[in-house]
């Protein structure tokens, strides 16, 4: 899963802070120690504890992943179907995230700026937010049936809250002197909102979008557990029934990697925005 900490307060690593920790190479080597130990335990100790079905060997998993990603598309299950799954999941993530963002940002701005909108919407948002996203699954199935619409619904719901809440915070915590300065420079209230309050809240909006995208990945998996045919989450669930633990583990690793990858462009955008900022 993508890291969720806001980028403007990225703490310096302990090594940098205390001036210890040696070269870049040393640090990478130290970071590799634990994964290596786990890999060794998995290879040599796990066979004594688990059956090869419960936990297949690393080599078996790599082989499974290789077939899943690069194998020929010859109709054999899990042979070369990664691209199809990825495409199906990606469509759902993008669709759900877009809905969540297109509703979440305007709602967040409205609640942040208008006391009326806050009085109207905030209690409702607070109430709905306390219902865990998973609880929506049965109702989503009744409303939208098994398949993509249910998944998109769950994803938009999951991404809506972090996006809306972060936007609200962003608008509420705008430095009041910025608005005052704009007003004494001759801006009307409306001009101050458009030219100062909106740009000042962009960093929090972007942070909310970043969180929303991370949540979209989580809810994508959940949404695909509703029994769709294609998709990373669907294949993950099906792999158990097909008795393919190697594919389960491959998919877990792949989904994690994709979460990190999808965060990169958003982070880049954030860094660009924050570069012009005092923080």
């Amino acid at each position, binding site marked *: 899963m993508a890291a969720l900490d806001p980028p403007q307060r990225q703490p310096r690593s302990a090594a940098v802070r205390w001036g210890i920790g040696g070269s870049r190479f040393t640090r990478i080597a130290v970071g590799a120690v634990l994964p290596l130990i786990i890999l060794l335990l998995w290879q040599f100790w796990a066979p004594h504890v688990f059956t090869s079905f419960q936990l297949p060997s690393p080599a078996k998993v790599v082989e499974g992943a290789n077939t899943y990603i690069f194998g020929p598309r010859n109709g054999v299950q899990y042979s070369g179907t990664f691209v199809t799954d990825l495409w199906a999941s990606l469509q759902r993530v993008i669709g759900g995230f877009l809905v969540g963002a297109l509703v979440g940002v305007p709602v967040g701005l409205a609640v942040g700026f208008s006391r009326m909108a806050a009085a109207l919407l905030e209690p409702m948002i607070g109430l709905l937010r306390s219902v865990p996203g998973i609880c929506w699954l049965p109702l989503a199935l009744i409303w939208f049936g098994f398949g993509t619409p249910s998944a998109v619904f769950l994803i938009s719901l999951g991404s809506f809250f972090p996006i809306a809440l972060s936007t609200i915070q962003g608008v509420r915590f705008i430095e009041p002197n910025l608005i005052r*300065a704009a007003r004494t420079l001759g*801006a009307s209230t409306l001009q101050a909102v458009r030219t100062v309050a909106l740009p000042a809240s962009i960093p929090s909006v972007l942070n909310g979008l970043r969180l929303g995208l991370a949540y979209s990945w989580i809810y994508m998996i959940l949404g695909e557990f509703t029994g769709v045919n294609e998709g990373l989450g669907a294949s993950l669930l099906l792999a158990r029934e097909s008795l393919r633990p190697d594919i389960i583990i491959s998919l877990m690793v792949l989904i994690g990697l994709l979460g990190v990858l999808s965060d990169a462009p958003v982070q880049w955008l954030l860094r660009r925005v924050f*570069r012009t900022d005092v923080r």
Partner: protein
Amino acid sequence: MSDLVRFDGVSKEFTDARSKNVTKALDRLDLGIAESQFVCVVGPSGCGKSTLLSAAAGIEPPTTGKVWFDGEAVTGPHHSRGMVFQDGAVFPWLTALENVCYGPTVRGMGKKEATAKAREVLAAVGLSGFESHYPRQLSGGMRQRVAIARSLANEPRLLLMDEPFGALDAQTRLTLQDLLLRVRESYRGTVLFVTHDVDEAILLGDRVVVLSRRPGRVVLDLIVDLPRPRTSEVEMEETFLTIKRQVREALRGGTEVTA
């Protein structure tokens, strides 16, 4: 000559939202400021100096009393009453030039004209060559220069300055005081400058007003009879030292707890 700005029995009370405690920042303050005068207000912290400026700027109306500007009651902010904040409040997402363009642009001046004006003002505060820098790329002193330039670009009749050098280190502070003295030679508007630094007040002002401890009232009102153009050299002169003694005295008296 009638005053450009008049504070007429201005009181300001703040009510704490939770404890309902009422704090009186200003108590029936009367003060008149003539056109083109540079008035420095000094007083102990918390005496309502900033409240005075907010009332004049129209961003924080007084509880009772009125502020008059050019014969009309102040009811809200206006570009003819510019304000420089202690933290500068420059817009971090705009470059120095764009920051200075903000006032003229928002009032409907064309982009070309506004840019020309902004370049001129930035040059006047010594920031030529930094037009395309973002605030975070500038030092604290330079950011404050941008804030001053941004207000001056509007050519306000009244410039309100709320401890504009209060957050700067001593060296930068001296540089900016010199700069303000130089700018003063070409900008002839009225200035109301709040500070807690007595030397700064006498160096910059045509007139020094001392406020008492909260609730603030005027306890001393002096004309600074030092020739302009001034430099920090005047701080050695007898006139300066005499005024400084008087202000110190007033401040000491003003800080006494009065029942």
